[in-house]
């Protein structure tokens, strides 16, 4: 049941009504039942069973880990719990990829051993709650968190429906106390939650889905596209994925706010980043914090005697895992590897950065920041090529500039299905999104917003009308659903 479906528009008010009428002691049960119902609505019978399995096993390992006294037993339990979760992830997501590549290896060496073909399973949401489960166990191991004694609340922490399918990846210490707080109706939260939901829907339907028409037309037939169309298609995809995912996150945060719950903000103007490291502090924040805390930092500490090389190696490893997390394909692996490589290079470059700027006399230039943003954006876009392409040969065609040898006489900047009207709409909608983000950070604008009923209701109506008349009608699925 995606957030942009009619089913969800009926489901959400119904759940809220039952939640509101139930007493505080029963509310966790209402949300837990709603979350499993929401997951079951995907009509994949084994998915709720996998969620229940992860919840039960992680809950038990958490309790045992807390009770264990001997360091050896604690370590064994931690590895046992993490391995159980990783096994679920491998079975659900990676078996077909592993089997296919193993078959390739056996064929290459003409081995007689036959690797059976494995059918792909639907794994929507699994990588998100498995990562949450692993973080929960590691936090207990390091005594950063206590295990949750109430199984119902723990299962709800893993399955809470606004963040079940695409995150944010929440830490137990942030979400569990909020789930246990008695509910009191809060008009401001209700208003803010609904506005955030509608705003996310606007980003998705008006902007992301429209940009997707351009990116799909270019990337689904790269050989027919001119160089300029490929460049614009890559820009379109960069903004499509950003608006798609940040729109989804707004809808998740907005839904949770109706229940007085604040989820982690996942985005902070990522394309204004001045370095790739800065990009990862602004893009999919809950995920990059997870990779940083549970993969990069332990590896960096383990390899700290290798100094800068140890840090570089830890970065490449962490980003390769990040790539694989997104899906079982070589495109994602290369995307992760590229980001790891960017970051590893920056570790070696950083000590000289200040000196280079001083040598060129640009360290205090007001334009330096904009130059850094431009370079970072293009590095990120280059990596997006591998994320988006349908096949690796398409990526090779683009990266080796083969399109330059093909004549595209009179090739237009526009593509099939995306006309001048769409281009104008994208421009206006993007300006509104930037303006909306800018205004939401300014106190004076906030005061004006809160003080004027006319302004607020004018904007609410405009937003609803924009969704009805300007939204792309064919319901597009969210890109991050697949991860």
């Amino acid at each position, binding site marked *: 049941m995606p957030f942009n479906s009619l089913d969800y528009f009926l489901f959400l008010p119904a759940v809220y009504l039952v939640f509101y009428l139930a007493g505080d002691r029963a509310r966790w049960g209402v949300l837990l039942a709603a979350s499993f119902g929401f997951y079951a609505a995907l009509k994949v019978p084994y998915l709720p069973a996998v969620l229940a399995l992860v919840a039960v096993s992680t809950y038990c390992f958490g309790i045992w880990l807390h009770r264990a006294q001997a360091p050896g037993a604690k370590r064994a339990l931690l590895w046992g719990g993490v391995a159980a979760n990783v096994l679920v992830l491998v079975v659900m997501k990676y078996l077909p990829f592993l089997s296919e590549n193993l078959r390739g290896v056996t064929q290459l060496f003409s081995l007689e051993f036959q690797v059976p073909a494995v059918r792909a399973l639907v794994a929507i949401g699994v990588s998100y709650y498995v990562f949450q489960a692993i973080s929960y166990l590691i936090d207990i191991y390091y005594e950063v968190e206590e295990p949750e004694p109430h199984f119902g609340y723990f299962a709800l922490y893993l399955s809470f429906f606004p963040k079940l399918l695409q995150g944010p990846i929440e830490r137990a210490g942030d979400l569990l106390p909020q789930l246990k707080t008695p509910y009191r109706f809060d008009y401001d939260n209700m208003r803010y939650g609904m506005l955030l939901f509608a705003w996310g829907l606007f980003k998705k339907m008006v902007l992301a889905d429209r940009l997707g028409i351009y990116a799909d037309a270019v990337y689904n037939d790269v050989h027919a596209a001119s160089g300029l169309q490929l460049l614009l298609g890559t820009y379109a995809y960069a903004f499509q994925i950003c608006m798609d995912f940040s729109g989804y996150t707004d809808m998740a945060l907005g839904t949770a706010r109706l229940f007085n719950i604040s989820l982690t903000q996942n985005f902070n103007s990522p394309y204004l980043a001045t370095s790739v490291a800065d990009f990862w502090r602004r893009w999919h924040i809950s995920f990059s914090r997870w990779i940083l805390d549970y993969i990069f*930092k*332990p590896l960096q500490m383990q390899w700290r005697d290798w100094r800068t090389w140890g840090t570089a190696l830890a970065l490449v490893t962490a980003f390769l895992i990040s790539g694989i997390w997104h899906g079982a394909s070589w495109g994602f692996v290369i995307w992760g590897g590229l980001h790891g490589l960017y*970051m590893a290079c920056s570790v070696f470059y950083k000590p000289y950065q200040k000196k280079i700027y001083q040598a060129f006399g640009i360290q205090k230039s007001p334009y330096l920041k904009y130059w850094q943003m431009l370079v970072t954006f293009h590095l990120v876009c280059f990596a997006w090529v591998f994320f988006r392409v349908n096949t690796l040969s398409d990526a090779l065609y683009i990266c080796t500039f083969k399109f330059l040898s093909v004549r595209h006489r009179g090739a237009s900047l526009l593509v099939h299905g995306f006309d001048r009207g769409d281009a104008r709409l994208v421009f206006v909608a993007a300006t509104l999104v930037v303006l909306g983000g800018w205004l939401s950070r300014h106190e004076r604008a906030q005061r004006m917003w809160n003080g004027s009923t006319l302004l607020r209701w004018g904007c609410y109506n405009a937003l609803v009308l924009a969704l009805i008349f300007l939204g792309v009608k064919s319901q597009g699925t969210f890109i991050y659903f697949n991860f």
Partner: protein
Amino acid sequence: MELQERLNEVFCQVFDDDDIRIAPEMTADDIDGWDSLSHVNLIVAVEATFGIRFTHKEVLTFKNIGDLLNCITAKVQ
């Protein structure tokens, strides 16, 4: 030399800034260039200067320079 002064020297050396003056309540937000990537360089430099070794758990639970100072004090005594 007092422990805090020696630690201050390590900070100046790692972050290439002689003007740094550390205080127990300061965090990574207060020092230019102190991020998760450079953090381990600081840890390695502190370990080498004081002849000590931190565990991963200790490094994870440092909330500010005061925590780092307390841990160093406990280890060198």
